[in-house]
């Protein structure tokens, strides 16, 4: 017990990043993630790191490009509209094959929206967000402890494959306080021979760049990058299965929606409905394998999301639309209740058979 | 009855002011409305509000 501390989700991300060796943070205030920046402002100077409140989110992401080019671990964070501002920079990072961590603590949208939580940036995170062909390694924590473990993991994966990573959380996860352990974080050592560190006139100079003069060369860069994405899709999907062994209905939910869904599943089980949950932990790569397998065993799916229906499309694709899929959702900053999810589980249980 | 010596400008909507008491943001807002009244340009004026306390001008009335 003594090795645990009580942290807000936002603080946990910041502390985990520091434990994972990140010594550079560039950010800008926006509710509900300002605590990430505030915590970094307090901690970084004490450990010889750099905290800078940039003049805008666009400036912050470009500062990240600078640091990432030198092979050092760097992080920025924002919420929904601020992430939109960063998207050009994120595309550049992907095109330059730079590892870094971008944190999105989602709020209601679109536009200025509101400060309450949402999951409506799923498409933005997994379908580019910025221009061009690329993917981010996207993780979705569902607890403050996962805010810690997935932050550390995202840095490692980003460096292993030279891709930018995104941690997709929502306002509630960012603001809630839970006891966590910040021990046991491993910092993997990956090749950094590509980084800009000064040649000392002893080696050929490295170049970080996403522009090519020749279309065929640019095509090659894209093809090579997608080979790395293939490796990520093969080796890095993460998910959790809950009560799936005998399930007739499969709930699919990530982040805060999965916490609510657990309550609903327990209530449904008490009513005799055999329901379980597959909780995606990586949103890209999406856990397609377990969902396809589930599609051959369950009668129906229920996705639970804080958006107008985004992850549900990935569930349809992964399950090849073999089974009916219902949705329990709220938007605008509202959170689905266990009762609402339960109602959809009950409905889904009445459906059945192949499409 | 007494003579009215001061009142809310006409182009300031008749809703409770949302700014903190004494905040100069509210004072500036009123001054802008007074200027609009004096110049008689309410019908030709488009208001623009930013994020921050002035965002409420988009939500009230």
């Amino acid at each position, binding site marked *: 017990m003594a090795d645990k501390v*009580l*942290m807000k989700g936002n603080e946990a991300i910041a*502390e985990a990043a520091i434990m994972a060796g990140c010594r550079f943070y560039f950010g800008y205030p926006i509710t509900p993630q300002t605590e990430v920046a505030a915590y970094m402002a307090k901690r970084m100077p004490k450990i010889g790191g750099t905290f800078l409140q940039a003049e805008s989110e666009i400036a912050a992401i470009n500062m990240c490009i600078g640091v990432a080019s030198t092979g050092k671990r760097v992080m920025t964070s924002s919420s929904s509209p601020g992430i939109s501002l960063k998207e050009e920079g994120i595309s550049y990072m992907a095109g330059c094959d730079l590892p870094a961590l971008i944190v999105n603590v989602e709020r209601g949208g679109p536009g200025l929206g*509101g*400060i*309450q939580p949402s999951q409506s940036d799923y498409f933005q995170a997994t379908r580019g967000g910025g221009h061009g062909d690329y993917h981010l390694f996207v993780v979705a924590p569902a607890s403050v402890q996962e805010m810690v473990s997935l932050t550390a993991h995202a840095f490692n994966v980003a460096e292993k494959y030279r891709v930018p990573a995104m941690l997709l959380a929502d306002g*509630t996860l960012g603001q*809630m306080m839970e*006891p966590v352990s910040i021990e046991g974080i491993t910092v993997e050592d990956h090749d950094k021979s590509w980084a800009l560190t000064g040649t000392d006139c002893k080696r050929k100079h490295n170049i970080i760049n996403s522009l090519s003069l020749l279309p065929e060369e640019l095509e090659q860069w894209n093809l090579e990058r997608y080979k790395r994405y293939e490796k990520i899709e093969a080796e890095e999907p993460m998910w959790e299965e809950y009560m799936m062994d005998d399930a007739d209905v499969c709930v699919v939910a990530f982040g805060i929606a999965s*916490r609510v869904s657990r309550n609903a599943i327990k209530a449904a089980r008490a009513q005799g409905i055999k329901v379980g949950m597959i909780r995606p932990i990586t949103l890209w790569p999406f856990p397609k394998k377990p969902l396809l397998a589930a599609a051959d065993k369950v009668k129906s799916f229920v996705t639970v999301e804080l958006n107008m229906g985004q992850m549900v499309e990935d569930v349809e694709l992964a399950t090849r639309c073999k089974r009916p899929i219902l949705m329990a959702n709220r938007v605008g900053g509202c959170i689905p209740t266990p009762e609402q999810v339960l109602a959809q589980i009950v409905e889904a249980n009445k459906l059945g058979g192949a499409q | 009855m007494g003579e009215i010596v001061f009142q809310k400008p006409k182009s300031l909507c008749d809703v409770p002011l949302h700014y903190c008491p004494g905040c100069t943001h509210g004072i500036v807002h009123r001054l802008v409305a007074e200027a609009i009244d004096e110049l008689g340009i309410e019908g030709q004026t488009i208001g623009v509000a930013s994020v921050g306390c002035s965002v409420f001008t988009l939500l009230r009335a």
Partner: protein
Amino acid sequence: MKFKRLTLMAGHYGSGKTNIAVNLAMMLKKAGEDVVIADLDIVNPYYRTKDSEEELRAAGIPLISSEYANSNVDVPALPQELYSIVDVKSRHAIVDIGGDDRGALALGRYTPFILEENNYDMLLVINKYRPLTPDTASTLEVMREIEAAGGIPFTGIVNNSNLGRETTPGDVIASDAYAKDIAAATGLPIRMTTVKAEIAGAVAEVLPDVVPLHLQDKRLWND
């Protein structure tokens, strides 16, 4: 526990001020006193005193808070009604102040009146298990920053050391040394040790002045 007319709760961000403020207001009301609770927090976007609005109303305790609390915006606007905590001297006021020095800044406009009336308790809420205040030195740093920002010196300590839902009696008892160390360094008394109601009895066997807390949990789920 004897209450001054004004009880101000301040401390590091996330130390538990809001929960304690609501509980103390309920305690005072149960003891037959006229009490109002004021939310001065301009730092926290969620988890505000406003979460307990229904319970407070049912207990007959008026809540003064920003009308934007728990809405879709987090404008740090404090309502004019807050002045009543210093103007209306016929009732107690429990004041929940936002965390750290940033939260204490909001106190400034009321400080001259509070000091003049001189019938207040400014309580430092401490939690050893918060990562930025794990020891005396860091806690004293936060304490001095708050005093400098708000202009009101602390008069006592409230030990609210906890690990949320996982708090054990052992965790609270183990924090007593930390609280005593801060008390010694500041010369301030430990006014109470606040503990969630389920384990308060076990802690009270070892520590004095234990006040049980009923936690305000506004999550839609429980796990």
